[in-house]
């Protein structure tokens, strides 16, 4: 058997990297399996943002990718090692825990910190997969650039839908927000900002039932009125999804307890999961706050919990 790591951390967003800083400073020589594609990009959702203006300590704001890079360097300075791979399977029924990676490596961990985050929810309608990256996107900051002077649709009714729509008006000539209901989950100030923007239009009580395309690009959406059931086409050049996130837990194959929405359950105020020696932090266990700073906070707690638990073990 290969030597077991004291702590393996799954995930490289603010939760995983903060856990790494604390675990490394406690001399646990953590290994961070950064993840690449399965759960979202390496570095997590912050790498898809631009200015982060609410992370304390940066009075002028900081770019999301730069903040993540800083955290990574800080973790590295205290002896964290990184593996830029996805974990593809876990066995948590016996200790040390066993993990296998996409390239076929076997890893063993005495304690495991799960910081796998969440990824954008998809609509699961015909055409969505085939046109992903060819007009269908979940990242306005990445792909908005390619829709200069075009008409794009943003699907969703929360703050992120309003924010993406407003951001996309920097490029697109017209942005239509398509939302299933008449009321928004978004805060009043965000809705008002979108409503005041004369490049933004609204299609309410409308659900996307198909993404239409020709020659490999999006040409429109088939919408269904959620009240009357009537269907009609809306011509557009792109569709951006802002319909929430799904916690990345499929790796654990049901071994870790989840709540009704799929988030990992921890024994608050600790970060202990139902399996002794497995701790969870960040967006994968937080459906309430989901901020970089709260993810970092729970990452710190997970590292301290893991350190104390390891100290109590005899082996």
């Amino acid at each position, binding site marked *: 058997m290969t030597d077991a790591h004291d702590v393996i951390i799954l995930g490289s967003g603010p939760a995983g990297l903060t856990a790494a800083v604390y675990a490394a400073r406690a001399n646990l020589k953590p290994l961070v399996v950064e993840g*690449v*594609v399965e759960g979202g*990009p*390496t*570095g997590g959702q*912050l*790498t*898809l*943002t*631009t200015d982060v203006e609410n992370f304390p300590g940066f009075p002028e704001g900081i770019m*999301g*990718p730069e903040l993540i890079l800083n955290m990574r360097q800080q973790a590295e300075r205290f002896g964290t090692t990184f593996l*830029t*791979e*996805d974990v593809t399977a876990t066995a948590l029924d016996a200790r040390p825990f066993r993990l296998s990676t*996409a*390239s076929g490596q076997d890893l063993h961990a005495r304690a495991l910190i799960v910081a796998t985050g969440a990824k954008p929810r998809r609509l699961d309608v015909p055409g969505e997969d085939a046109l*992903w*990256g*060819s*007009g269908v*996107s979940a*990242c306005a*900051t*990445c*792909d908005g*650039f*390619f*829709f200069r002077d075009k008409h794009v649709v943003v699907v969703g009714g929360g703050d992120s839908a309003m924010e993406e729509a407003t951001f996309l008006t920097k490029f697109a000539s017209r942005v239509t927000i398509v939302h299933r209901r008449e009321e928004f989950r978004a805060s009043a100030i965000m809705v008002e900002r979108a409503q005041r923007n004369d490049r933004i239009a609204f299609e309410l009580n409308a659900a996307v039932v198909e993404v239409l395309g020709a020659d*490999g*690009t999006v040409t429109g959406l088939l919408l269904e009125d959620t009240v009357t059931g009537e269907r009609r086409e809306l011509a557009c050049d*792109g569709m951006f999804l802002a319909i929430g996130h799904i916690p990345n837990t499929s790796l654990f194959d049901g071994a870790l307890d989840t709540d009704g929405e799929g988030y990992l359950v921890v024994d608050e105020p600790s970060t202990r999961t139902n399996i002794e020696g497995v701790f969870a932090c960040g967006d994968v266990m937080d459906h309430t706050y989901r901020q970089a700073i709260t993810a970092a906070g729970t990452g710190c707690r997970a590292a301290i919990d893991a350190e104390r638990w390891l100290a109590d073990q005899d082996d």
Partner: protein
Amino acid sequence: MPATPVTDAQWPTEVLESDLPVLIDFWAEWCGPCRMVSPIVDQLADEHGAKLRVLKLNVDENPATARDYGIMSIPTLLVMKGGQEAKRIVGAKGKAQLEADLDAFLA
């Protein structure tokens, strides 16, 4: 040797007329996932440079090529062989997955 920058103007000579297959990394400064992929592309240039020319194109500075090839999401990696598109990989991937996707051009 990291990936070599290429521009719209250089595209015909550097890419279309290349004897070797060419891998082009379409990227931009503001694209977070691109920053994750670029170092891997540099490694591919290092390790497979004899089989594959590895270039990178900044879409901010070179919008024409990105438009001509219908690039609508970055990072996108394109393999061009004999002046024709032979492979397109959209989105960030790890080194092992990229090498598997590019297997036909690295063998």
